[in-house]
């Protein structure tokens, strides 16, 4: 008989890192290894509370632990934020499609993301850094609402030092009393500073729906090809198994055929940005 697809792998919460007032990273150690490919997601459950889909934010070359970065947005995520090191959690997965790294080799890459959408992009970025010699360049445009809302603050200075990496951040606005010496504006304004050739490059986009929508529109206008724009879609991937049907988007299951899609794949489906 096949293993029960609903059984979780127990894991222990090792540490929590506060990224912003609403975003926290959890580092977990599963009882048995849970290898994943960057871009795939896992179902994280708190015993007795609930379960939800999260894309790991750590490199897929790190196999003994796994990070997820979670924004407080509802019942489950509030409880996740209350979890303490030493707590037991459950993991299922990994599920879905991953970023096609072999297609990225030798290419100029643009990573465009905002808010909590930076979580899967951090995984991608760290995975790319682990084999950076394979890629031509990585441009990382990261957005947040305000300076306080920027996740991974401590990591950015080190990432930026890498010769093949160009990392630019923008915040929508700077409230009085907050310091900021980088760009101001929605993240898509950074596309005006692009110094790679769009028609030969690949783009990966993840963020709030409105950012994905306008980000994709702007990338197309710049000349990125629709089959080379990779979108990490967010729908309600409740079971992760293509069974519960909550994440159905036309004839695709986001959990099974995605969450990583090319724009060309899904451009004709309804409600992709909602």
């Amino acid at each position, binding site marked *: 008989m096949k293993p029960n697809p609903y*059984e979780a792998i*127990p894991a222990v919460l090792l540490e929590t890192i506060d990224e912003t007032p609403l975003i926290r990273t959890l580092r977990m150690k599963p009882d048995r290894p849970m290898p994943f490919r960057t871009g795939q997601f896992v179902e994280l459950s708190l015993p007795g509370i609930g379960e939800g889909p999260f894309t790991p934010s750590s490199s897929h070359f790190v196999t003994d632990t796994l990070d997820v970065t979670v924004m407080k947005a509802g019942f*489950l995520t509030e409880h996740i934020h209350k979890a303490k090191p030493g707590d037991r959690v459950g993991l299922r997965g990994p599920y879905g499609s991953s970023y096609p790294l072999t297609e990225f080799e030798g290419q100029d890459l643009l990573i465009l993301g905002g808010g909590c959408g930076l979580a899967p992009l951090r995984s991608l970025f760290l995975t790319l850094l682990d084999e950076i010699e394979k890629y031509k360049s990585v441009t990382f445009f990261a957005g947040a609402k305000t300076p306080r809302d920027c996740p991974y603050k401590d990591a950015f200075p080190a990432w930026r030092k890498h010769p093949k990496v160009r990392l630019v951040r923008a915040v929508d606005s700077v409230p009085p009393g907050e310091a900021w010496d980088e760009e101001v504006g929605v993240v898509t304004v950074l596309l005006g500073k692009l110094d790679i050739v769009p028609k030969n490059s690949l783009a990966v986009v993840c963020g709030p729906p409105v950012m994905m929508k306008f980000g994709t529109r702007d990338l197309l206008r710049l000349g990125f090809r629709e089959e080379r724009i990779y979108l990490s879609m*967010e*729908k*309600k991937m409740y079971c992760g198994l293509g069974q*519960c049907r909550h*994440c159905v988007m036309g004839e695709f299951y986001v959990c099974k055929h995605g969450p990583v899609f090319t724009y060309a794949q899904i451009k004709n489906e309804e409600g992709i940005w*909602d």
Partner: protein
Amino acid sequence: MLIHADDLLAFLRRCLNEPIGPYREIYIPVRQDDGDSSATTLAPLREDSRPVLDGHRAVDPAKLLFYGVRERIAPFDREPPPALLAGIKACDVKALEILDRALINKDFVDPAYQSWREKTTVFSFDCTDTAPTCHCTLAGGKPYADTGFDANAARFGDRYFLSAGTEKGRALLDVIRKHVRVDAAHDRVPAAVEARRAEMTARVVSQSAAFERSEDYDRLRASPVERWKEESRDCVGCGACTHICPTCYCLILNDESRGADFVKVRSYDSCQLHGYARVASGASPRPRMDERFRHRYLCKLVFMKSEFGSLGCTGCGRCAEACPGGIDFRSAVRHLMEAAPGVRAADGIG
């Protein structure tokens, strides 16, 4: 083989009482009240049950027995008793074929469904009557099963013609042959059965005539939003249609872990409910009722067809029966198809 109708019912009771055969539980359509209603529900056979093997489909679908409204799915360690499900009709048999593809496939096996399914012998019966909302012929079906059953009983006169479709069905027929006087010489469908089947099919076709429609369901996508709004006007979004549908299997998982065990409980969910596809940020791909209504129709007639190779509707008509808003799936589909650009009402029929 042929068996007398009274002998078959007596055999089912003996299975539990003596017991003969491997079946520790028998599920069967039973009449619930003393009135003259033809309505039956699926229930375990008991001494005081009033079983109805003929007639039309029961009020509730067979999925209830294999795919619980609410059941613990992980860890799953139940051992269902060997059971016989007798008296379900072709629309439910067809629905089980769809659920089999959805719930037992190369990517995924639902452990609970698989256990119930393996332990249960499906013994279907030809329809000898129609419920007012029956319309299997519009959904490409017939009021008797060709495939999908373990064993089938086709009524003619005061007898049944029994046939087996699987090993489990042959095992059932062997038990019957061993304990009941049968006429085993008949191994072909009697002409009288063929005639009754043709007559029943004609009855369903006739009561569905007002709802005939094109089978080019892809065109539903193009039906204008005003039409969807009109058809869904009386929909209160309760989800009765999806819960009673024999092919709907959308689920939610609840975590009911205590201590060190991870316990998951699966319950039915409904795409008609507002929170169904809403994500934590509050975004929902179908915030309006007419959009969720449309999603259900597309799922039944387009999405499931492309995924499982047959419509997600078997024409049982239970959704129309269950709807508190009085929405009739048959007329809604006809109206929506008529409103789709370039489609004539009876395109592709006859």
